[in-house]
């Protein structure tokens, strides 16, 4: 099978107070939809990342429930209004129960 999913996140390191920043995330994952059949005609079981969530200093900011219609190596971008310095935690939840996380620091000033 494939290697362990690796998340990649792009967050600006610095922002002015009140500035709107765009956060872009990408994670390597096949996002097997559960709709495809293998060479023997058997359905390949579904295995997707079903939830992505972002929090800042422990407070939830944004989350996305992904369905099988999300492309492989899912990309997700969203916005955040920078008010104070802190740390983002990004979490991806896999169908198999695993969780992948990434952390990014943001300095406001």
């Amino acid at each position, binding site marked *: 099978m494939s290697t362990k999913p690796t998340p990649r996140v792009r967050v600006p390191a610095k922002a002015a107070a009140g500035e*709107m920043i765009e956060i872009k995330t990408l994670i390597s994952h096949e996002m097997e*939809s559960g*709709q*495809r*059949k293998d060479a023997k005609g058997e359905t390949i079981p579904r295995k997707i990342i079903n939830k992505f969530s972002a929090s*800042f200093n422990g*407070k*939830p*900011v*944004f*989350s*996305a*429930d*992904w*369905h*099988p*219609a*999300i*492309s*492989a190596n*899912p*990309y*997700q*971008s*969203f*916005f*955040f*209004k920078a008010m104070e310095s802190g740390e983002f935690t990004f979490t991806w939840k896999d169908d198999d129960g695993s969780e992948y996380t990434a952390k990014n620091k943001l300095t406001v000033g």
Partner: protein
Amino acid sequence: MDFQQAGLSRRHALKAGAFAAVASLLGAKLAFADEKTVADELKKLYGDKPFAAGKIKLDVPEIAENGLVVPINIEVESPMTDADYVKAVHVYADGNPLPGIVSYSFTPACGKASAATRMRLAQTQNIVCVAEMSSGALHMAKANVKVTIGGCGG
């Protein structure tokens, strides 16, 4: 007379054949979501509440060459303050095997109710996007995407 009868029966045979073809097409289509399944999903979430137009900017390509990776960008007009913000956005497709694409939940900390991702589309179909405001107001936007190559591994 005989000739006419033969003509009639041939017409019948053709009709029956056409009917069978349509029926088999419909049968094949049953595996996919349609407008009704999308409406049912919305009913599950919001009951019979009406959806207003406007406020949602649904940015999808008019023609997608590759149905496996179709970019989708959503932006909902809102001040995004504690008193007035976009709570949730749900996106559906009416021609995929499953109607759901993505559901977002926003908070005032986002500053802007906007998100972008990439989706798979099996065929040419409509994208339905609904937004739920913190006030309870509902908005809806639709867009049609023409898909040249489907994205369902089929």
